[in-house]
């Protein structure tokens, strides 16, 4: 293994896999996003992607993600606090396993499950009507922004719980005891130690949840069949339709925008995680 090429032999297969099946698609996206239908260089795709109906789509996606992440952080954290300090070992294990399971629920099956429960003819809708609550009496429908939000929470909240449990366990019991022996009130301790220690971790998780929601496609596609114009849905419909001649190019530009947003979120996440890891050592 002394030759130059031999030195990297084991890494070549994965290099090829990544370059061909990730690299080429990425290059294609960049290329087409900067081209018009005829192949000439242009920036109009980006201009279109960031205005009008497409801008609405981006904002909608961002809103859905910001909101689902926020609700998940609050609910998940409360839930995790209640469970993590419980003395019942079994409870913690059960919740942890259940959270792991539900965090991986998504896509088409999840959408159908909700349609069968809270859809117009869903079982829960029917049962609620029998007890006098007409969920569809007003304006609300499952196939709306808020409906989608509820479905997203089904996998977002468990993900938050899953990440929060070890986070809360990382709060050493010695800190509270030391704070008490030093004569501090719970409030001061919370303010001076707990919040500063948890804040970067919670923020990092928020970003994780944000990107999780932002990149999601299958659930929205199966639930709303394109009526809620999230960015992934718009991209898919642009590709599928033959009406717009530069549809594919706009779709690519939208894709680049998506990647940019996810990349920013992920890089903040990584720097936060690094900071937290330092403290933990």
């Amino acid at each position: 293994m002394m030759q130059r090429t031999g030195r990297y032999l084991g890494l070549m297969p994965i290099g090829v896999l990544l370059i061909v099946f990730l690299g080429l698609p990425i290059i294609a996206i960049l290329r087409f996003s900067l081209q018009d239908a005829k192949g000439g260089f242009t920036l109009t795709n980006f201009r279109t992607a960031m205005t009008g109906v497409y801008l609405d789509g981006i904002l909608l996606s961002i809103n859905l993600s910001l909101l689902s992440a926020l609700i998940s952080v609050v609910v998940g954290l409360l839930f995790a606090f209640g469970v993590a300090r419980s003395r019942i070992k079994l409870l913690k294990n059960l919740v942890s396993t259940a959270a792991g399971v539900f965090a991986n629920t998504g896509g088409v099956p999840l959408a159908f499950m909700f349609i069968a429960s809270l859809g117009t003819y869903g079982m829960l809708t029917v049962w609620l009507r029998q007890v006098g609550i007409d969920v569809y009496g007003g304006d609300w429908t499952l196939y709306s922004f808020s409906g989608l939000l509820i479905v997203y929470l089904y996998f977002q909240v468990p993900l938050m719980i899953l990440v929060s449990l070890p986070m809360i366990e990382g709060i050493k019991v010695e800190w509270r005891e030391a704070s008490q022996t030093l004569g501090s009130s719970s409030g001061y301790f919370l303010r001076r130690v707990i919040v500063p220690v948890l804040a970067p971790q919670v923020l990092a998780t928020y970003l994780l949840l944000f990107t999780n929601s932002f990149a999601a496609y299958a659930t929205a596609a199966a639930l709303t069949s394109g009526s809620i114009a999230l960015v992934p849905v718009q991209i898919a419909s642009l590709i599928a339709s033959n009406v717009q001649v530069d549809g594919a190019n706009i779709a690519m530009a939208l894709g680049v925008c998506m990647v940019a947003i996810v990349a920013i979120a992920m890089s903040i996440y990584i720097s936060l995680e690094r900071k937290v890891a330092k403290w933990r050592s």
Partner: protein
Amino acid sequence: MAFVAFKQVEKKFGGNLALKGFNLDIETGELITLLGPSGCGKTTALRILAGLIPQSGGTVHIDGTEVSKLPTAQRNIGMVFQSYSLFPNLNARANMEFGLRARKANSALIKERVESLLEITGLAEHQSKYPHQLSGGQQQRVALVRALVTQPRVLLLDEPLSALDAQVRVQIREEVRRLQRELGITTIFVTHDQEEAMSISDRVGVMRDGKLLQLASPQHLYDKPDHAFVARFFGTVNEIPTRLVTPTSIQLWRSEVDIAGASGEPVGSALALIRPESIRIAKAAHGEKAKVVAISFLGPITSVEICPLSPAAADVKLPESIKVVVSSQQAMDLRVGDEVDFDFDLKSALITYQS
């Protein structure tokens, strides 16, 4: 009354009695160490005093006041934990200031107290560092200063050195003792390491199974242990089986020894616990003898394995061979195969009965 007092303190964990009838009086300015194996109740007693766990029975007093109803934060104590107790998001100085800032003390006072302690301990150069940037020893020193800044009435240390390297341990325990003496603060130290306990304490309380076996100065514990357990805990001790001749005397080696003051019920056999320095061993010309079978040099002491040659009158029933630890000075000229005789100085021996 003593400055710190435990009166008949009891603690039950589930069905397990962790502390039984625990009584302890500590004088102002004393450094007392609670010493014992894990599970003996020493940490439990400390944490009850701190208020971190409630007792199941008995009372605890600090400076004349019964403190059981007081929450930890109001007991005005300082505590150093085994590890992980520094707040990770605050640097060393901020950690030290925590107690006073939590009590809304004024900045000038805080600055004065912290800086004087920083100077005494030589930690000034590390004050801006965060816990993860400090070594284990430095962290514990910071934790010590943090506990002392608030000028507590009592200082509690829960195995503060157990997680540190051997060399660092010695440095820091000496610093603890130095600071404690200088500030004159009443201190309770908990450890399972007898060397630690002996080197820094005014008095040591040896504990086992939730009970305080003996409380005395290190010297007294070494010279006059009350229990076999205590004797075994400190330094090396020889355990020589003996036989009862009369209810008040035993057959030890060649002689009959009067043991009116021994502990326990006079039935069965007795065990003589004798320190190496109380044994004289020399080559025997005649009389009762034993043969040297093996010699292990251990530094200040030497283990000599001997085989009793002719048992004393009336079957003493000594084992085939026993190892006797003597001071190396005594064993200097011995060789394997020599025939030797013993002389015991029983003034500092402990005789206990075994049923």
